[in-house]
């Protein structure tokens, strides 16, 4: 029995070793590298697609850039990938970090070799990178959401927010910014009445309970805004199943939400938002080029051209409360009946 167990353990270790060696080493001589969170994730694939498209739009060929998907969404897998990129002598690494702190030492190694480090999607500690391509600026998300509420209520009436947990940093920042925007322009938003911020804890069951409670508590409710992917899907299902007249908007995954998006009475969500991973990949590509060319250094106030991207040229802004820089992609991407069919298979 012992022998069998030890055999199994050895086999597992061997497989694990093989798996970590299994990443393909592609072209050497590449200058610009992209490291995503993990292989096999449609969202990451789209970031890579954007990165590639921007590189080619900038006149570079496939030998100039390298895209690496770690085998797993772990820090260890990313460290292995970064080490191999360092030894290949790349000039820049754009990474969607799997952990804000644990990559610190390997990124310091890369920096010591003169490699320009930038992050996208998920940031690391500011000292470890030059800049961060931020897919969701707080102001932009809040503005899009409050305008959607304004539009769906018809300019006045009750609305509620269904958030994640009461401590969720992103959601709280967005909600505070929504309130601030509404308070600052009372001529436009003054007739909107936020009745409650409910918390579904990013749990389908609790989000369902909270949505049902909102409907029962506020008979005049017109709109629910759920700036969280789990909450928005749960609320969409409740409203649609109950054939409620309350409309929904928020931040959601197109694949999760496709069934609920539509302008007629049979659908609960006329439109919602999320960022566009393709554009985020593009932005990271243009920022990489600008950093390597020395056009920007990662300092707040730097400016660079980003090809034919909608918001080009981009300016590096300060991350709130620090002097570290970030590049905000732009307003979140709107998913409505006209484009949901195309996006639902993407992520």
């Amino acid at each position, binding site marked *: 029995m012992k022998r069998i167990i030890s055999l199994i353990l050895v086999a597992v270790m061997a497989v694990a070793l093989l798996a970590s060696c299994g990443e393909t080493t592609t072209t050497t001589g590449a200058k610009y590298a992209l490291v995503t969170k*993990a292989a*096999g*994730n*449609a969202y990451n694939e789209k970031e890579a697609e954007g990165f590639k498209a921007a590189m080619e739009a900038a006149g570079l060929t496939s030998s100039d850039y390298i895209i690496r998907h770690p085998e797993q*969404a772990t820090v260890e897998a990313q460290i292995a990938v970064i080490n191999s990129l360092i030894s290949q002598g790349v000039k820049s690494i754009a990474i969607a970090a799997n952990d804000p702190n644990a990559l610190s030492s390997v990124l310091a190694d890369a920096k010591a070799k003169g490699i320009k480090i930038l992050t996208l999607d998920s940031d690391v500690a500011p000292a470890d990178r030059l800049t961060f391509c931020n897919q969701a600026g707080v102001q932009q998300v809040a503005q899009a959401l409050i305008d959607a509420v304004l539009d769906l209520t018809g300019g006045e009436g009750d609305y509620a927010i269904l958030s994640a947990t*009461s401590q969720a940093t992103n959601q709280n920042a967005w909600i505070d910014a929504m309130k601030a925007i509404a308070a600052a322009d009372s001529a436009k938003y003054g007739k909107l009445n936020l009745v409650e*911020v*409910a*918390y579904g804890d990013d*749990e*389908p*069951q609790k989000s*369902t*309970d*909270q949505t*049902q*409670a*909102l409907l*029962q*508590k506020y008979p005049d409710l017109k709109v629910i805004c759920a700036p969280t992917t*789990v909450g928005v*899907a*749960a609320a969409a*299902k409740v409203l649609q*199943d109950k054939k409620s007249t309350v409309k929904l908007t928020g931040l959601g*995954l197109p*694949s*999760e*939400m*496709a*069934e*609920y998006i539509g302008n007629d009475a049979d659908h609960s969500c006329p439109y919602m938002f999320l960022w566009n991973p393709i554009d985020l990949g593009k932005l990271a590509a243009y920022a990489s080029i600008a950093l390597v060319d020395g056009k920007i250094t990662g300092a707040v106030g730097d400016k660079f051209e980003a090809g034919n991207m909608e918001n080009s040229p981009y300016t590096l802004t300060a991350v709130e409360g620090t002097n570290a820089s970030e590049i905000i992609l732009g307003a979140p991407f709107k998913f409505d009946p006209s484009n949901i069919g195309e996006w*639902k298979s993407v992520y």
Partner: protein
Amino acid sequence: MKAFLRKITGNHEVTLGIILVVLFIVVDILSGFKFHGLENIGDIFKNNALTLIMSLGMLCVLITGGIDISITGTLAFAGMTIGLLQKYNIIHNTLLLFVIAVAIGGACGLINGLIIAKGKVSPIICTLGAMYIYRGLAYVISNNQWASGEDVTSFSKFGNSAGPYIILALAFVIYFVVMKWTPFGRKVYAIGSNREAARISGINVDRVEIAVYTLMGVLAGLAGALSVSIYGSAQPNMQTGKEMDVIAACVIGGVAMSGGRGTVVGTLLGGIFYAVVYKALPLVGLEAIWQNLIKGVIILGVVIINVLTQRAMNRQALARREI
């Protein structure tokens, strides 16, 4: 009057039933009489169908003196599997998907049962490991994908029908009959009351224990299928932490963590009590940040009442014997 009082203080189910009715009326008043509607009561049962169904399995596990904290891992593994089978258009038959989920759950439970009964591993240790393994398997097979929305459209029709209510009712009726009137039910109680005595009197303790954990797995698998069906979504992290709700429902229902004591009716009342609290807290105008705290206070309060009732019962039993 004395007999009436004795009846109240002498029976868990009656006490809990009275508390439940009082709670329901209070909540109904506080919420402006919006709580007693048929739709609301339907929602209470449907939203807590998973907790209620798994509490039946947990009842048996707890009666034998064990515990199973791997159930939501099993739930996620089974739910994720059938979610992916639909996502990749392999199977769309609702009945078949339920059978697969139940089979996966049963297999997970059987493994737990074998390790606990034959390997003599403490249930909490075994199921702690199993919790990570089954949850991990859900992550591995999901490969960062969710199955949701359109992937599970036809399957989630079942969740919107009377289906979940029928399954819930059937499960409780079957368990009520089995635990009260069959040899299997009596063996489960016997093991929990006194394991050695049960063994000496010829009960195959290992076999009963394996069966108890396998049934727990079957119900967790069933709950996985229901979860995908009711919420229209399969994610590897689904229902994380719900095992505590299930255990809480049992404990509120008067099931003893030390084994040997607990009834299907008590568990049902405990589950409904928990469900009503869950549903009521957001409705009565309590601020969100207070809800968990209040929930904890209510659970503890009921458990204390349970303990006091139990003491009264024991005293009465003693008094009767002295006569």
